[in-house]
């Protein structure tokens, strides 16, 4: 086929394509009842004025996303709460707090413990509590905790 013939063939094809494209959907559009649509649109606008529509963030899709996020966060918190023995944390905090006490305060603590606990064989060091270093204090407290 010559270039000229190809050109005309191409043009013809384009023309047919455009002709078909122009007709596309025409028959269906002709069968549409324009007046009925006009009435229905006006009625719906009257029934649901623009101000009555929900803002975007209250649309159901956003609400679903927010609910899913809330569930995830709640689930994460529950898992964190259940993860690891709580008692071990408490004991650790008790020993840490006690190292900050002065000798007099520690004596008061031990006296209180003496009153509430049966110490059995536990012996308190002979010397002044002020002379104990934090490690020794921890050892004493652990022996008290049993």
């Amino acid at each position, binding site marked *: 086929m010559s270039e000229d013939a190809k050109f005309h063939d191409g043009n013809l094809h384009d023309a047919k*394509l455009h002709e*078909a*494209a122009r007709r596309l*959907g025409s028959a269906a559009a002709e*069968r*549409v009842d324009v*007046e009925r649509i*006009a009435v229905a*649109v006006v009625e719906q*606008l009257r029934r649901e004025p623009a101000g009555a529509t929900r803002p975007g963030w209250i649309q159901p899709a956003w609400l679903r996303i927010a609910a899913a996020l809330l569930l995830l966060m709640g689930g994460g918190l529950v898992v964190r709460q259940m993860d690891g023995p709580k008692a071990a944390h408490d004991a650790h905090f008790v020993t840490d707090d006690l190292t900050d006490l002065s000798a007099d305060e520690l004596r008061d603590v031990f006296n209180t413990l003496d009153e509430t606990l049966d110490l059995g064989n536990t012996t308190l060091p002979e010397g002044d509590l002020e002379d104990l270093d934090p490690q020794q204090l921890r050892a004493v407290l652990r022996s008290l905790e049993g």
Partner: protein
Amino acid sequence: MAQPQSIAATPAPAPAPDPALIAAWQEGDEQAAAELVRRHTRALARFLAGAGAPEADLEDLVQEAFIRAFRAVNRFRGQCQFRTWLLTIGGNVLKDHGRRAARHKVVPLDDSLTARDGNPHERAEAGEAEARLAVGVGELPRLQREVFLLRAQQGLEYDEIAAALDTTEGAARVHYHHAVKRLKEMLQ
């Protein structure tokens, strides 16, 4: 001597342009909204049907597109004609309808190509070409499909299409040419 008076027929009042009708609707004039619907329904229905809307749902889709357009009319800045803007809203409505249909396993059947006036032979030929084109258009990516329909079916210029689809004129041209190329391949 009295000059003969020229008797001129009173010209029919020019129809109100779209921006005037939009402004009137925003002031609460329902008849202005109805007039806009009457003016643009056929073009919108043709666009939707061409893009693959099932005929059974066509009126509902047209109605929904108009409702969305009137609700969002404050965001219409006149960057393109009202009709072009309306057609792009129609494209979104059709996309949402397609999603819903897919969820409910509805297979859209378009019988809009079966009824024709004119010579039965020509009708059959034209109908066949159109049916094949409709299938081809349905297989195009969305942007190519919309650009093709806005250009070839609605006869819009590229700058108008670009403004409506929030793209550049060059990109609109590229989409159109890709669409035509693919359609030619499909139709051969």
